[in-house]
């Protein structure tokens, strides 16, 4: 056994040997190499099969958007309707609202999260005692650990009309009237970014903090010797040196800007119909269309729109990343 393998390797390593070998041997060798890889194909089969079912089958299912789909008739049995579903979708006000909400919220999240997390990471880097660095880091990561359902409970304790702490304690202290938070859409463009920041700041801080830790300490020593102030060091050393990471993270988020955190927009506002104007995004629209309203035509058209535009955005974002640094690009 070992003998034959070693022979195989000899053939592989020495092109002359392969070329000079008679054809029969070459074919035999090919079969044998292939045989050698059979265990590998067995290993990758189950995982690949899963991806085919979970990811590739639904890609073909996108044709639903061009059909008058009916669960009883199935995909093949349903009739083609061309672009009818899209016509209906884009005639409604909804198409504009969900696109606007998705883009504006996610765009704002990117800016807010990045600026805040870079700030926190810089402050964290100033702390000398390792104990405190660990402590702060652990605490601000706690919200990242819990599900959006639990977040919606925490928000409810704050905003509930009858018993929320805002209406009962904080607003009266400021001399303000109680507000029906779950019925007034105008407040949610402020509420949602705060919740999103609260939940994800720990995650982004860790990424930027680890980038700062990677900076060579000698830069700071030299700067201190030259009499540079802390503020100057932050502006001239820290930020420029972590900017590749900042740009990378931003571009990757831009690539995902057409997808939103479903829980944040569905569960946290308690699926309140009065708030749709400022809480409805593509993901929640598709979910409601499919499972609550039974409007599969519109849902599948919106889903198709999201898949295609999302795909184009990922490609563009990656193209830009790739131009800056090949290592950081997805492909």
């Amino acid at each position, binding site marked *: 056994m070992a003998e034959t393998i070693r022979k195989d390797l000899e053939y592989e390593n020495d092109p002359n040997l392969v070329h000079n070998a008679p054809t029969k041997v070459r074919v035999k060798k090919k079969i044998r190499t292939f045989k050698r890889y059979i265990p590998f194909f067995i290993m990758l089969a189950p*995982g*690949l099969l899963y991806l085919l079912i979970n990811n590739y089958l639904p890609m073909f299912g996108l044709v639903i958007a061009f059909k008058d789909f009916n669960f009883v008739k199935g995909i093949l049995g349903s009739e083609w309707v061309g672009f009818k579903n899209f016509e209906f979708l884009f005639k409604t006000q909804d198409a504009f609202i969900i696109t606007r909400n998705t883009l504006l919220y996610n765009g704002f999240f990117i800016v807010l999260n990045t600026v805040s997390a870079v700030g926190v990471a810089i402050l964290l880097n100033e702390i000398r005692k390792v104990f405190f660095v660990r402590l702060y880091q652990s605490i601000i990561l706690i919200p990242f650990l819990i599900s959006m359902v639990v977040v919606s409970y925490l928000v409810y304790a704050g905003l509930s009309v009858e*018993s929320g702490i805002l209406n009962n304690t904080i607003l009266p202290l400021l001399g303000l009237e109680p507000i029906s938070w779950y019925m007034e859409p105008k407040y949610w463009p402020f509420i949602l970014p705060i919740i999103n920041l609260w939940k994800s700041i720990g995650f982004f801080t860790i990424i930027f903090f680890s980038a700062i830790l990677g900076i060579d300490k000698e830069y700071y020593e030299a700067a201190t010797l030259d009499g540079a102030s802390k503020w100057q060091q932050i502006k001239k050393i820290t930020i420029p040196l972590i900017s590749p990471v900042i740009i990378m993270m931003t571009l990757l988020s831009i690539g995902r800007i057409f997808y939103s955190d479903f829980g944040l927009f569905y569960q946290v506002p308690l699926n309140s119909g009065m708030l749709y104007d400022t809480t409805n995004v593509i993901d929640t629209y*598709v979910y409601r269309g499919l499972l609550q309203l039974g409007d599969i035509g519109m849902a599948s058209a919106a889903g198709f729109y999201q898949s295609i535009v999302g795909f184009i955005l990922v490609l563009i974002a990656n193209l830009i990343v790739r131009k800056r640094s090949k290592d950081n690009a997805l492909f």
Partner: protein
Amino acid sequence: MTKETRRWQWISHICLASISIFCIIPFLLLIISSISDEMSILQNGYSFLPESFSRDAYLYLWEQRGQLIRAYGITIFVTVVGTSIGLALTALLAYPLSRKDLPLGKFFTFLVFFTLLFNGGLVPTYYVYTQIFDIKNTIWALIIPVLLVNGFNVLLMRTFFMNTIPDAVLESARIDGAGEFRAFFSIVLPLSLPILATIGLLQTIMYWNDWMNGLIYLTDPSLYSIQNILNRILTDIQFLTSNSDYAAQSGKTISQLPSATIRMAIAVVGILPIIVAYPFFQKYLVKGITIGSVK
């Protein structure tokens, strides 16, 4: 320490302490509310300083424990099974792809990679899992869709295998007559414990916190995980009661339930395990986040 350094120390400590408080204060409100007296909440709302305390909410949950224990059982089952199968499939898929000499290797890697760029979205996925594979209202609905294998994790693990498993070690194993499976289980996996632990941890948290699969594929409450119960109860406090004869037993009507505090108590029960375990896995979580971001 110069004067300036000291000043920066102070500023940083003050800012970070405030941010830390901002991050945990909602949890504090949640816990205090759950042990508040229902009456004081009805009068003054949720508060850090309630007029009186009470354990009624937890007593009520204890009476309803059957359903909560069941839900916990489901969550634990789904998390353990999902993470183990997912991790196994991920490693088994990543290892062959890490071999540079695998025939069609580039093509398979691309298949994995493409799933990160493009996906069919909810409607076709729902169709596949309900019409082609009938997993609606089965436990598999909580395990299989979306969460089991993630292309990104496969590529992460592939990179790890490529960088840390020396070819020479595998070569010598093969010369010693070990089959590929033997080599994988007795050489590759033991050398890859760090990446297995990190990805396993992230996947555990994902399964533990998932409620979307339940929301989409379950209509049968007996399969609800703890997150699905939480999801339901927030808007429908009678959900727990409607599945039992609590009202009949205790002689109380539903309107007499301490519902404002029960809500908070059940959320506390929901987050307790993850908060208790957090100090133990914190280090790995930080590692996992950084690995994922810089590849």
